[in-house]
């Protein structure tokens, strides 16, 4: 029931918002976003108390991993929603709000179903919904970005469909019952009897397909364009949680693949793609001329790190990877929202034409710097802890070479990102910015996100470690 509510809220909200305008739209939007957040947190609390939520004969199902993602989507969409009214100007392009909530709905659906077929449909739905949001500003660049995004992700997701077909093919020969053969609970039960070669082939297609959505190199080419051209709240959603939904899809298949083909197969793929993503990001972080693009490449880096953590495996590596998903979601969405404020003040996202943010927009600049330091993995922020866990797992599980190389690349990426940010934060601007975004209302969401990041970095609330343990039990049983 609770699961139905959390899915229904954004859907109903989107329907109501379709025709709404002006103040009514803004109010409805706020109400929808707030209730999505509340319902998502309620689901997380209920599942964390040990309950697995089920609806429609198990078609919808939320275990601890789903609840983790639902909570994340709720929080990040709340964060992004709080910034959205700044981008919806009267008389401008319409339908931002309804498509925004539709987008949130598709992401929530993707993580709260037991059926990998329905999950595929939902993940595809995320592309179709968000492509309008990427092209919301209707500039030449955003048009190009949305074209690339739609084409590359459609092809990617079709490859994931091929993988899903092969999984179904392997499952149905074991199982027979057609309505349940695509359930991951069923797949996991049958996994030891599934043909290992077919499952390996399927997993390759699934990783390439969902990896495209997750932004793993070398399938990441759509990502810097789409993330830098979309309005900031959309970039925040895409970088923060859409990529994580892609990772989630891979994670859902991983236990079954490990059981059918042995853990070495999936591990090898994850390690190679993870390392490659970090390397690509490290290189492009140095050459990117645009700070929103730099943030987008930083997402490639962090998703690569998550992949490494999953590849290293073990309780620490898996927990580190899933914690990193959450930390990255918070830090990256915050930095995208702030970069949007900088962009609208200076009228440009080029690094070369923005100078002296610290002087002219001290609060935004300080918060932006904090979020960048968090992304760079410095204490006291949560990413420091999750990266530490990932690398500890790497050395402990016997991959010192991979972990060492990744660390080196991380340092390069770190320097590249800081160099870009340093240039926009300090110095004398050629043109005076329009001014600081004022008012406590714009400060609260950002402060809250940074506060949570300090919390996951310094002091885990009671029960947090146990919650992570429950996730690990699902991903690497």
């Amino acid at each position, binding site marked *: 029931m609770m699961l139905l509510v959390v899915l229904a809220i954004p859907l109903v909200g989107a329907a109501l918002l379709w025709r709404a305008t002006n103040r009514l739209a803004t109010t409805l939007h706020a109400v929808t976003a707030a209730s999505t957040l509340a319902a998502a947190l309620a689901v997380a609390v209920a599942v964390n108390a040990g309950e697995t939520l089920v609806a429609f004969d198990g078609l919808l199902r939320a275990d601890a991993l789903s609840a983790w993602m639902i909570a994340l989507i709720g929080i990040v969409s709340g964060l992004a929603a709080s910034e959205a009214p700044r981008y919806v100007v009267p008389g401008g392009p319409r339908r931002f709000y309804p498509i925004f909530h539709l987008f949130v709905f598709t992401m929530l659906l993707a993580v709260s179903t037991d*059926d990998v*077929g*329905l999950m*595929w*449909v939902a993940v*595809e739905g995320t592309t*179709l919904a968000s*492509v309008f949001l990427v*092209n919301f500003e*209707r500039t*030449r*660049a955003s*048009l*190009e*970005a*949305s*074209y*690339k995004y*739609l*084409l590359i992700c*459609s*092809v990617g997701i*079709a490859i994931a*469909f*091929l993988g*899903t*077909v*092969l999984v*179904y*093919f*392997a499952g*149905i*020969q074991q199982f027979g019952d*057609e*309505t349940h053969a*695509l359930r991951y609970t069923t797949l996991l039960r049958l996994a030891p009897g599934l*043909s290992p*070669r*077919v499952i*390996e*082939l399927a997993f390759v297609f699934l990783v390439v397909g969902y990896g495209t959505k997750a932004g793993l190199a070398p399938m990441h080419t759509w990502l*810097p*364009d789409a993330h*830098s*051209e979309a309005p900031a709240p959309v970039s925040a959603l895409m970088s923060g949680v859409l990529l994580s939904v892609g990772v989630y899809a891979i994670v859902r298949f991983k236990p079954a693949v490990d059981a059918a083909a042995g853990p070495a197969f999936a591990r090898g793929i994850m390690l190679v793609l993870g390392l490659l993503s970090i390397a690509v990001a490290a290189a*492009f972080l140095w*050459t*990117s*001329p*645009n700070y929103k*693009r730099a943030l987008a490449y930083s997402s490639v880096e962090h998703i690569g790190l998550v992949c490494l953590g999953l590849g290293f495996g073990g309780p620490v590596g898996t927990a580190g990877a899933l914690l990193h998903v959450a930390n990255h979601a918070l830090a990256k969405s915050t930095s995208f929202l702030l970069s949007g404020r900088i962009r609208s003040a200076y009228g440009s996202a080029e690094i070369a034409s923005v100078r002296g943010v610290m002087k002219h927009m001290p609060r935004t600049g300080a918060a932006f710097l904090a979020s960048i330091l968090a992304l760079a993995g410095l204490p006291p922020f949560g990413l420091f802890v999750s990266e530490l866990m990932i690398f500890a797992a790497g050395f402990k599980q016997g991959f010192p070479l991979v972990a060492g190389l990744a660390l080196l690349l991380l340092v390069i990426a770190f320097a590249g990102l800081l160099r870009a940010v340093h240039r926009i934060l300090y110095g004398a601007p050629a043109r005076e910015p329009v001014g600081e975004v004022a008012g406590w209302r714009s400060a609260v969401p950002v402060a809250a996100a940074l506060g949570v990041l300090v919390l996951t970095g310094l002091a885990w609330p009671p029960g947090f470690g146990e919650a992570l343990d429950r996730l690990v039990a699902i991903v690497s049983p």
Partner: protein
Amino acid sequence: MTTASNLLAFLCLAITLLIVWRQSWPARLRLFAAQSLLLAILAGTIGVLAQRRALLLVAAVVVVVKVWAIPRVLARIGSGAPVRRIAPGRSSGIALLVAGALVVAAYVVMLPVTAAAELPTGSAIPLAFAMALIGLALCVTGRDALSHILGFLVFENGIFGLAILATYGLPSIVEAGVFLDVLVIVLIMEAVVVQVRREHASIDVDRLRELRG
């Protein structure tokens, strides 16, 4: 059943090769419609022979969506484009060779699947996969939006064919999702192409070169 599915899948692949060979857009479009019709016949035949009612419905939907609706939209998109002349330095000979190599690759990649297949239609799986691979190649190497869309659709047809041959079709909720998805992608593509054309007076995506680095 094996003979029928092999024959139909082979014809679909043959049409894919023809799409690679032909360079004129209207001809390619007609070939795509013919290929989709053959897929519908494939689904219908298996539906009758294996007594799967759901597949008959799927066949009907294929006819409506892929034989009728999508080619209409594509024709509308392409109506502004001149009949494509062969670009200098590009002959279909090499493309056909590559396509041939992809067919061989498809057989190699699909070995574990055909080995595990128990259905009588299993032997045609590599043919469908080859179709998908060639479609993917068309999509990736395409120079304008129309070739991208067409390549994607051929790719999708191949995967769809593979799904029918390997499993007699997926559960209906997934199938419905797939059809809706393809239709929406084509419609969005149309909207995007219309906007590109307005801004650039061409559908050559080579001109989309602003985002770099």
